[in-house]
């Protein structure tokens, strides 16, 4: 905790500060017994331990073993699982797709969310109806979104397939690698846009009216005004969303991918998380799958650190 306080800055630091801030003396609750506060904390700590630290430790330890598929025994193999994964052409190929998938999903869902938020911010009449319509998509659960997405791309009734056919394209989602990738990205973006929309809209609304008006007097060109005076003030929101969106694209798209590629022919694009699942639970290669999830954990850790180190410096907090 102390380490995080020192290295993190901006919003994280503020969250931590808020979380660890001493309560006002008047509101302070005094406990008679020192054990009592720990009892109150226990459920939360138990949840964190059971669902995060324990599995992480398990994953790290089992990543150094090759386990018998039927659970009869495990053999220590050192870093073999890691070298196997990183050395495999298939793994590198999936990693490449994951990177592209993450970049595209993040870029499009942020871009479209921003566009919609800016436009919704300008709507005056029926503004709440309009906003509710845009936000409500977020209430759809990921597997359901995946299913709806699948239906949009259904071979027989899917409107997207028909649209593509109209242009002379024969779309085969679940069979053709690129068609599946396209559908996957589209559904993932579609699912994430409302989330970004909510945050960007609230970010826009926190920009003081007078600053917008000052910009209106200082800059005639609307687009230029937006990029020089409004967008920089959204930077804290955008930074937060960037981290959330990358995490979303890497991990939370699992359900969407699962619905799209499950029980389909083998040559479909998948992301690293899905491969962890396939190798571990379908292939029963617990050791290899653990090694992959540790690699993924490290990648996310590095990415987040890089973002906080390099990007956050350019973010202005008014």
């Amino acid at each position, binding site marked *: 905790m102390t380490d995080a306080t020192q290295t993190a800055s901006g919003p994280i630091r503020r969250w931590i500060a808020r979380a660890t801030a001493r309560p006002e003396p008047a509101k302070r609750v005094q406990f008679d017994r020192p054990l009592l506060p720990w009892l109150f904390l226990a459920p939360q700590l138990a949840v964190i331990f059971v669902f995060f630290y324990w599995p992480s430790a398990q994953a790290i330890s089992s990543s150094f073993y090759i386990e018998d598929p039927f659970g009869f025994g495990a053999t220590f193999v050192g870093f073999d699982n890691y070298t196997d994964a990183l050395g495999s052409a298939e793994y590198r190929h999936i990693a490449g797709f994951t990177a592209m998938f993450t970049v595209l999903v993040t870029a499009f869902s942020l871009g479209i969310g921003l566009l919609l938020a800016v436009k919704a911010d300008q709507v005056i009449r029926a503004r709440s109806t309009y906003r509710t319509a845009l936000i409500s998509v977020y209430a759809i659960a990921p597997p359901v979104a995946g299913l709806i997405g699948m239906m949009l791309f259904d071979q027989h009734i899917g409107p997207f397939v028909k649209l593509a056919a109209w242009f002379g394209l024969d779309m085969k989602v679940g069979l053709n690698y690129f068609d599946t990738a396209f559908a996957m990205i589209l559904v993932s973006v579609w699912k994430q846009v409302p989330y970004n929309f909510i945050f960007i809209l609230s970010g826009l609304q926190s920009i003081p009216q007078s600053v917008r008006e000052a910009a209106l007097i200082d*800059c005639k060109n609307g687009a230029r005004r937006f990029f020089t005076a409004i967008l920089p003030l959204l930077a804290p929101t955008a930074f937060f969303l960037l981290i959330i969106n990358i995490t979303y694209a890497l991990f939370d798209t699992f359900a969407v991918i699962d619905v799209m590629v499950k029980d389909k022919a083998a040559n479909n694009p998948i992301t690293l998380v899905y491969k962890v699942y396939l190798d571990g639970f379908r292939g029963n290669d617990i050791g290899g799958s653990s090694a992959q999830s540790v690699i993924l954990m490290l990648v996310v850790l590095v990415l987040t650190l890089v973002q906080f180190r390099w990007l956050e410096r350019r973010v202005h907090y*008014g």
Partner: protein
Amino acid sequence: MAAITITNVSKTYPGASAPSITDINLTIADGEFIVLVGPSGCGKSTLLRMVAGLEDITAGEVKIGDRVVNKVDPADRDIAMVFQNYALYPHMSVRENMAYGLKNRKTPKAEIEARVAEAARMLELGPYLDRKPRALSGGQRQRVAMGRAVVRQPAAFLFDEPLSNLDAKLRVSMRGEIRRLQKRLATTSLYVTHDQLEAMTLADRLVVLNAGRIEQVGAPLEIYHRPATTFVASFIGSPAMNLLDAEVDGNRLRIGGHVIETGRAVPAHGAVTLGIRAEDLHISATGLPFKVDFVEELGAQRLVHGSIDGQALVLSLDPKTPLQYEMCLSVISDKLHLFDTISGKRLEQAHTIPTLTPVLA
């Protein structure tokens, strides 16, 4: 530099039943400092924002120089505005804040630098040029906001309650600074405030607004000494002018059970509203009986609150004057202001106005 002409301007917000601004006519001469003053909700800010182009004009015409600007973009009106909460761009340094408007107008770089440097010198912002607004105090931020207006060298400055967020001491010094700057640059200025003291001290001419209409336009002292309505009388001047119910009977005025001579013919008969400034009342041996209620000490003067026949009255006295609980008051007859009880309009015209001798360079 330009004159501003406001002709028959009205503003009705969409959905509102009554207009916020009704038929305003005002001509602001080139280089003049006009202060719009009135209570909150009187439409003063709306009027300013219509000149700035931040509000649509429902009816009428606004001209800056020779150009009708009703449909002109705020950026093309050649005005600069100073906002109450400064409205600085938080992600830009002081220098960038000042240069932003010029950069967008494709002003040559050297010219921008020269103007920013000049404004920084004038406003003593030199040491802060590379700081972000959040690292500045309220007064410094307001100076940056003024610098941003000054570098533009616009036809007119528009000030929207620029000193309201500052503490009392800073407000006084900034007031002086604004006045000096405006005199020096001789830029037409329109200044909105609800503070009558700020209005009195800054204005070449004051415009008193009430409920979307102009109550009176005039030089500060003219308005002070000859308020056109009871509203102006009670709004301008501190303490507010005493307003009493009285009755006119020829050359005499009856207040409650007491009579004072006006010494001249009064163009009215019956009930009127009598206005007397606190400093125009004097203690005398005979006159209106005054009962003291409480006293406010201001140091240089002493405000004595009390009543005459049950009507509240404030009296401004020298602190050295001895006080009693019951005193008699007299007033010089040409310091009496008479207003129509119903319309609130001033009744008589004959009144001498002390002329203002400006000491400002």
